[in-house]
C-alpha cells in the first residue's frame, strides 16, 4: 500500500516506531473494529482508534445523547442532545480523521443481530453499561471466535480484560452467571467521576491497537483493576475455567439467548 503525503504526516509517530512501522499502519488501516456502546467507554475508545487510523469502526448504540452524558462521554456535545449517540460519535470521529469509515448503528444488540454485526470484524470492544449486553457480547465472541476487549466502570473504579476465545479466559470463566438485579447498584448509587471512562477506555483502545499490530502482551487471563481514589492498578489472574458454560470443555451454552433483567440502566 502507498501512503498519501497526508497519511505519512498523520501517522508519522506510528511509522517511526519499530513495532508499528508502515506495515503496522497498513494493518490498522485495513482493520475493522466493532464498538458496543457509544457512551463513557465507547467514546474514548472510538476516538483513539479513529485517531490511530483503524480503517472501519462500527459504533452500536440505541440511546440518544442526554445532557447528563456530557460530564464524561467526550464524543458528544451540547448541541447534539437528542441525537442518536452512534450518529453523534460518527460526526466527531469523521471530523478527526477522514481515512476512517465510521458506521453508526442506532440499534439494540440482540441474540438475532449480534453475530451478523461481529462476524467480519477483527476485534470487538465492549463498552456497554449493563450485564445482559455484557454477557451476550461475551457469549457471541466466544461462539464466533472474535477477540473481545471488555471494560467496565463504576464510581471510582474500572476494570479491563481481553478475551481471546479458546486461548484464554472469557467473562463467564470469571462470573458464570449474571448477578441478581438486587446486587447491582441502583440508579442512586451508580455515579462515575468524569475522567474515569477516559482512563479505562484509553486502556481498551491500547489493547485493541496491540491486538491489531500483533505486538506486546494483552490482558489475556488477566484483569486490570483501577482504583482512582487510591491511585492503584492491580492486575489479577483470571484462569480459564474448564467448566465454563460457554468456553469450557463441555459447554452448556451453544446458542445465544437474550438476557433481560430488571437492571437499572444509567448509560455509562
Amino acid at each position, binding site marked *: 500500500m502507498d*501512503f498519501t503525503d497526508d497519511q*505519512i*504526516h498523520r501517522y*508519522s509517530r506510528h*511509522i*517511526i516506531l*519499530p513495532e508499528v*512501522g*508502515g*506495515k503496522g499502519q497498513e494493518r490498522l488501516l485495513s482493520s475493522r473494529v466493532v464498538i458496543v456502546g457509544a457512551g463513557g467507554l465507547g467514546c474514548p475508545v472510538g476516538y483513539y482508534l479513529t485517531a490511530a487510523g483503524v480503517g472501519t469502526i462500527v459504533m452500536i448504540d440505541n440511546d440518544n445523547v442526554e445532557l447528563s452524558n456530557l460530564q464524561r462521554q467526550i464524543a458528544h456535545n451540547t448541541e447534539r442532545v437528542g441525537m442518536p449517540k452512534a450518529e453523534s460519535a460518527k460526526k466527531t470521529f469523521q471530523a478527526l480523521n477522514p481515512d476512517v469509515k465510521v458506521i453508526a448503528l442506532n440499534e439494540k444488540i440482540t441474540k438475532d443481530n449480534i453475530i451478523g454485526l461481529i462476524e467480519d470484524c477483527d476485534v470487538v470492544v465492549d463498552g456497554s453499561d449493563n450485564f445482559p449486553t455484557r454477557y451476550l457480547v461475551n457469549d457471541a465472541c466466544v461462539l464466533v471466535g472474535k477477540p473481545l476487549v471488555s471494560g467496565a466502570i463504576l464510581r471510582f473504579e474500572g476494570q479491563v480484560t481481553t478475551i481471546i476465545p479458546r486461548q484464554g479466559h472469557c467473562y463467564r470463566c470469571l462470573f458464570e452467571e449474571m448477578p441478581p438485579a438486587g446486587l447491582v447498584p441502583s440508579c442512586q448509587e451508580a455515579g462515575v467521576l468524569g475522567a474515569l471512562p477516559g482512563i479505562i477506555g484509553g486502556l481498551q483502545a491500547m489493547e485493541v491497537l496491540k491486538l491489531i499490530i500483533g505486538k506486546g502482551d494483552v490482558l489475556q487471563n488477566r484483569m486490570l483493576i483501577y482504583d482512582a481514589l487510591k491511585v492503584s492498578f492491580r492486575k489479577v489472574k483470571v484462569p480459564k475455567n474448564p467448566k465454563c458454560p460457554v468456553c469450557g470443555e463441555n459447554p452448556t451454552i451453544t446458542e445465544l439467548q437474550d438476557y433481560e433483567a430488571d437492571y437499572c440502566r444509567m448509560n455509562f
Partner: protein
Amino acid sequence: MEQIKPDKKVDIRGLVCPYTFVRSKLAIESLELGQVLEILLDYKDATENIPKSMQDHGQKVLKVEKINDREWIIVVRKEKE
C-alpha cells in the same frame, strides 16, 4: 571507494525531521532482507539522525557521503524486518 549498487533510491530533499526518517523507513520496509537503499538528502541534521535511527532499528549503515555543497547520500542495507 567500493561502489555499492542500490536496489532502491529515495529522494528526501526538502524534507526535515522526522519526515526524513519516516520516508527512509518506509522505503527500507519495502525492500527484502539484504537489499540496499540509497537515500538522497539535503537536511544536515538527518545525516546523523537517520544513520543512528537505522542502526537502532537493526539496519546496517554502509556509508554516509557528502556529494556536494549541500547534499548527502546515505546507503543502508536491510538486515531486519
